[in-house]
């Protein structure tokens, strides 16, 4: 097993170009578990945790979040009532948050990855970089299946980018205890005042994170009917949140596994989506 410690992104990309089977490691929260268990023995490992180029975070016009940014930094540098912060806070423990990264969450591509619903609800593009150049993929083209992505050998995730949100958002996840859980289901609701749209993404209820277009259309209409787009104080009818939840649940494709049942996941995502919509609409009022 070869281990490389490149000091610059170019060095890292050069190493990866020469070693198609090399695995990058940043926070290690997934790869080290596999190594410790003996489940994986990569031919080469490239440490990308020293690359300053991956830790950038730009926020003007478009948000560009570097792959090397840790959950702790997200938590520290974002407002509290925002989905990205809420997702970061819901991850693991302080130790995990200090090491786990945006890039790691994307690269592992678990359907339970906590940041992914937020990126999906923000229509994020995933930035990939290699020795031969850069490319950008919409999130849904990047995530191709449970724990599989469109990344090719030699490529590194550079980060994710999305249009600066023009409205409030919420993230919530359900787990079987009060801390340190892999989610059984998760929801992110994002309001886009500029586009007059509501976007919702759900995790752990399908092979990949999913969007719920019917629910999104319904939410848009419900706000419109109430005259709420121009005036956030005009809220949709009480029943709208519940209906929204039902439509989100209909878009879910959950399975039974050791952590939970498909039936509970579908139930929980319905409840969670309704609550997330209500909370997000409440945040439109500047609360």
């Amino acid at each position, binding site marked *: 097993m070869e281990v490389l410690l490149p000091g610059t992104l170019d060095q890292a990309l050069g190493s990866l170009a020469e070693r198609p089977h090399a695995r990058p490691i940043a926070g*290690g929260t997934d790869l080290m578990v596999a*190594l410790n268990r003996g489940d994986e023995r990569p031919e080469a*490992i490239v440490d990308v945790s020293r690359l300053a180029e991956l830790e950038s975070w730009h926020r003007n016009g478009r948000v560009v979040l570097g792959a090397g940014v840790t959950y702790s930094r997200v938590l520290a540098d974002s407002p509290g009532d925002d989905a990205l912060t809420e997702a970061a806070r819901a991850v693991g*423990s*302080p*130790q995990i948050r*200090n*090491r786990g990264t945006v890039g790691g969450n994307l690269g592992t591509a678990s359907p339970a990855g906590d940041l992914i619903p937020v990126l999906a609800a923000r229509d994020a593009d995933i930035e990939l970089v290699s020795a031969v150049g850069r490319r950008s993929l919409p999130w849904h083209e990047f995530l191709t299946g449970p724990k599989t992505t469109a990344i090719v050998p030699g490529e590194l995730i550079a980060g994710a980018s999305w249009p600066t949100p023009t409205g409030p958002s919420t993230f919530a996840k359900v787990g079987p205890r009060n*801390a*340190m859980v892999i989610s059984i289901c998760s929801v992110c609701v994002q309001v886009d005042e500029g586009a007059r749209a509501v976007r919702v993404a759900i995790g752990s209820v399908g092979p990949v994170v999913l969007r719920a277009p019917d629910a999104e259309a319904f939410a848009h209409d419900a706000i419109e009917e109430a005259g709420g787009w121009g005036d956030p104080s005009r809220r949709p009818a009480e029943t709208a949140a519940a209906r929204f939840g039902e439509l989100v649940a209909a878009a879910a494709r959950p399975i039974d596994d050791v952590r939970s049942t498909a039936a509970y996941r579908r139930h929980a995502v319905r409840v969670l989506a309704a609550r997330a919509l209500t909370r997000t609409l409440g945040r439109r009022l500047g609360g």
Partner: protein
Amino acid sequence: MLVRLRVDGEWREADAWEGSSLLSMLRDDLGLTGSKNACEEGECGSCTVWLDGVLACSCLVLAAQAHDRDVGTIDGLAGDEGDLHPVQRAFLDSGAVQCGFCTPGLVVAVTDLLERDPDPSELATREALSGNLCRCTGYVKILDAVRLARRRLGEP
């Protein structure tokens, strides 16, 4: 694979297997067995160390990732004369130690918490320690130890 790192203020060198974690390197190659291995998947916090001043599960750090970096462990927490750190003393005085396997990780995590926030609320304390499992105490006396350490550290 030769890894050079500064552990508890002292530069050390270890010839570790490439696939080793920092935890295994500390314990098996550097003889620093204070950090414990209870799960090797970042779930229990028994292996908690400081990596460049930041709390981390050493089982999730590849040994080579610690190259040229600063690591702080339970083994180096007591003073130069061997005197106990106030957090260690508080754990003893509060009855917060039973089997003690979780204790090194918790002592490091509590020390880190009180360095960042000298007067944490109970909820902030629980959140800060949510990555450290204990099977013996039910956490009640561990919270007592945090309160006691907080009080003592606040005294001039």
